[in-house]
């Protein structure tokens, strides 16, 4: 069960370290659940591009006598993986209440968002060679993945644009979103190239901040402050071809195996899903994940995205907080946090009328790491 959610101020929030954001997020999550920090006996930490969060967070928070403590890192799939490990821990009695936290502070006041993710590689050795070749940061790598999908299936930049426009419409309804001004398909098509086929509006934000959730048992959750969110199913998939020959590159991701496995564990099918919160580092990531989860046949993600199903009032309630494109970029905590809000029924203006089952994805590396969660407002399949 997810019994607590803590979100710091997100976005251009300066002057705080990742460890400070992480501590703030855990305090907020515990308070949200109606727990004291001393009620927690487990802590799973994770960090982003700037690092700076570790098991030392235990000391920062004055947490004593923990029964579970570890730092986890599988990139954008970490948030889902943390909830899986925490759920196993509370099911087995290893711990009774586990905080899972992510924090990062890549933005600096005098530096553009691109610099935050583009200048990590030292110019020596194999990584230096990759950068010297022009492959710097995730933008060109995902662009190469997206182009392969376009070349194989005829997917277009306009189809990517429909995803960006729909998610901005959702963000307009989310007070926590960084970009809430509506955009049109024309705005998307006239936004500057970042790495063709990606324009600016195909790329996620960069944000400072931290988000934590509290995972506990059903018995404990029933006594706490918030509507409990059940963790009904989970799965991971890590194909393992990063920067290697990979016939599936850009075409099929780990979501194709993890999605069905998580639904099986939950005892439901895709038609039972009410709300979908997908990792959206790029518009293309959403498109290929929709295909891999089976919302449309392989190769038809483009026409599906452009068919009018997306956005508020659409048939598919997808990335209802604006996602990473328009909301906030907290790696896998972005889709997870919005999923918890929706499953609880606390989405206010953007709340889905039916929210019994919420499907959540995490994606890391260059489509290399995947985690799926199935969350529910009820204990069993509805």
């Amino acid at each position, binding site marked *: 069960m997810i019994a607590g959610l803590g979100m710091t101020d997100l976005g251009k929030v300066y002057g705080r370290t990742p460890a400070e954001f992480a501590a703030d997020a855990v305090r907020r999550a515990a308070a949200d659940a109606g727990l004291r920090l001393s009620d927690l006996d487990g802590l799973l930490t994770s960090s982003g591009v700037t690092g700076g969060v570790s098991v030392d967070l235990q000391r920062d928070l004055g947490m004593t006598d923990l029964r579970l403590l570890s730092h986890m890192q599988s990139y954008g799939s970490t948030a889902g993986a943390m909830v899986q490990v925490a759920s196993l821990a509370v099911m087995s009695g290893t711990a009774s209440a586990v905080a899972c936290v992510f924090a990062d502070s890549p933005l600096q006041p005098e530096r553009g968002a691109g610099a935050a993710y583009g200048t990590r590689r030292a110019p020596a050795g194999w990584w230096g060679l990759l950068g010297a070749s022009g492959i710097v940061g995730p933008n060109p790598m995902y662009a190469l993945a997206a182009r392969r999908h376009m070349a*194989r299936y005829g997917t277009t930049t306009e189809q990517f644009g429909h995803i960006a426009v729909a998610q901005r419409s959702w963000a307009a309804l989310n007070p926590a979103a960084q970009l809430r001004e509506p955009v049109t398909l024309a705005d998307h098509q006239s936004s500057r190239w970042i790495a063709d086929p990606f324009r600016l509006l195909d790329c996620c934000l960069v944000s400072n901040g931290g988000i934590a959730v509290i995972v506990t048992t059903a018995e404990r959750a029933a006594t706490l402050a918030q509507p409990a969110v059940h963790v009904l199913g989970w799965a991971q998939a890590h194909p393992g071809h990063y920067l290697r020959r990979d016939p599936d590159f850009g075409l099929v991701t780990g979501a194709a195996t993890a999605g069905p496995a998580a639904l099986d564990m939950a005892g439901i099918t895709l038609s039972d899903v009410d709300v979908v919160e997908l990792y959206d580092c790029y518009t293309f990531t959403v498109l290929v994940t929709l295909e891999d989860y089976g919302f449309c046949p392989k190769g038809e993600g483009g026409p599906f995205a452009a068919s009018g199903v997306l956005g508020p009032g659409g048939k598919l309630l997808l990335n209802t907080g604006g996602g990473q494109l328009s909301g906030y970029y907290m790696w896998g905590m972005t889709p997870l946090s919005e999923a918890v809000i929706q499953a609880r029924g606390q989405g206010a203006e953007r709340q889905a009328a039916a929210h019994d089952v919420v499907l959540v994805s995490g994606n890391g590396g260059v489509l290399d790491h995947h985690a799926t969660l199935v969350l529910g407002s009820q204990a069993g399949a509805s």
Partner: protein
Amino acid sequence: MTVGPVARDAATAEFFDAAAAGRFLLRRCPAGHFSEPSAAQCTTCASTALRWEAARGGATLVSWAVAWGRPASDPEAQRTVLVIAELDEGPWWWSQLADADPASLAVGQRLRIEFRRAGSEYEAVPVFALA
């Protein structure tokens, strides 16, 4: 279209020695499988008895993207065509495509490996050109 500076380290010394002589080295195991140059074990059979072997230099285009610099008075000047190429020996390699119009590219086009340097004090960087 330009490559950046890169220095060698212990793991890349032999690769860059060969690059300076115009050869692209792959790793090959006793069973004959090729792996990418950074591989510590065979990507097919996990053998660690790898030796260097020069690629023939031919490749085909797998995917491409066009990286743009930050807005400048002449953004066209900052365009870099980036590609994934499948070497004829099997491994994939990620680098630039020299002197190509991205509008004319198609999957499967024939490429050949060339080398460029950011300056005489830096190592030679493999790039691709249309064959």
